[in-house]
């Protein structure tokens, strides 16, 4: 069970998946595209978690499962661990990755094209579009985390926050 695929293939596949769902299948409905991509991630996470928990003992509580996601699961997927884990001890966890692998090759500066009077608003608009475009790429890893945790018996909602690239935070809210 140990075949390997080149990383550039995986990244190209992800880029193409986001692009075809956003521009082709659900061209003017970004919410539907996002949900579809997240559902694909959910399935993938489900199956991956089954595979990566094979060799180790089972988990006795939620924190151990989250720690498994931060350490073993993340290193299998991205060859590194989560850099920072925060919790409010009430069912919310923040997983912070200081250099998220799948976004590491993504350009982040939107260059404003207008230099006229409406410069501020156009810069804001361009930034908003860039953030929206980058957010699309995060639905898949969010889905992976959600699928993995669901398979371990923890229903949750996962969202991503990219206020400072290339660092990326995933917020996991466990449903009570």
């Amino acid at each position: 069970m140990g075949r390997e695929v080149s990383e550039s293939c995986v990244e190209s596949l992800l880029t193409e998946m986001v692009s075809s769902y956003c521009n082709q299948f659900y061209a003017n409905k970004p919410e539907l595209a996002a949900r579809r991509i997240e559902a694909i991630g959910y399935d993938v996470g489900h199956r991956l978690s089954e595979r990566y928990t094979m060799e180790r003992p089972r988990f006795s509580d939620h924190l151990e499962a989250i720690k498994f996601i931060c350490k073993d699961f993340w290193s299998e997927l991205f060859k590194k661990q989560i850099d920072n884990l925060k919790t409010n001890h009430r069912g919310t966890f923040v997983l912070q990755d200081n250099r998220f692998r799948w976004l590491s090759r993504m350009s982040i500066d939107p260059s404003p094209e207008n230099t006229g009077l409406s410069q501020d608003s156009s810069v804001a608009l361009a930034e908003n579009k860039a953030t929206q475009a980058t957010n699309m790429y995060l639905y898949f890893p969010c889905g992976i985390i959600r699928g993995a945790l669901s398979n371990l018996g923890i229903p949750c909602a996962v969202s991503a926050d990219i206020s400072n690239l290339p660092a990326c935070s995933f917020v996991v809210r466990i449903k009570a």
Partner: protein
Amino acid sequence: MAGTACFIIVSRNNIPIYEAEVGSALKKEDAAHQHHFILHAALDIVQDLAWTTSAMFLKGADKFDGLVVSVYVTAGHTRLMLLHDSRNDDGIKSFFQEVHELYIKVYHCLCFSVMQSFPSSIRFGMGLALFRKIWMLILCSDSNYSCLVILLFPFREF
């Protein structure tokens, strides 16, 4: 004393996914499904036992009339349950580990969702592999067996 074994895989939502029976199964009308009944009755006990430990292999979870139920619980709370009468613990543990590997391989198939039973083509391939393993398990066990009938139940669709 014939060696018998009945094996089922139950998913986390308590949906049976796979079944196989090996050995001289009872053919009497009233006791035809006794093995399956014992296994299903053991589910509650297995559920309680699974939360008390973080080990995956729970041997001797339940007993009935000389038959023993051993269970292997995965992290995703899928239960591989084996009803047997031999005492070959190591053999059973390695059997469970091999089944777990096979299960993961089938699980990766995109056409398979845990809400259904395994589709027939996959079931057949897996069934053959499992049947061979159950056969080897019985062969290695200590009881002297006479294997009159080998039954491989295709799973009933729900």
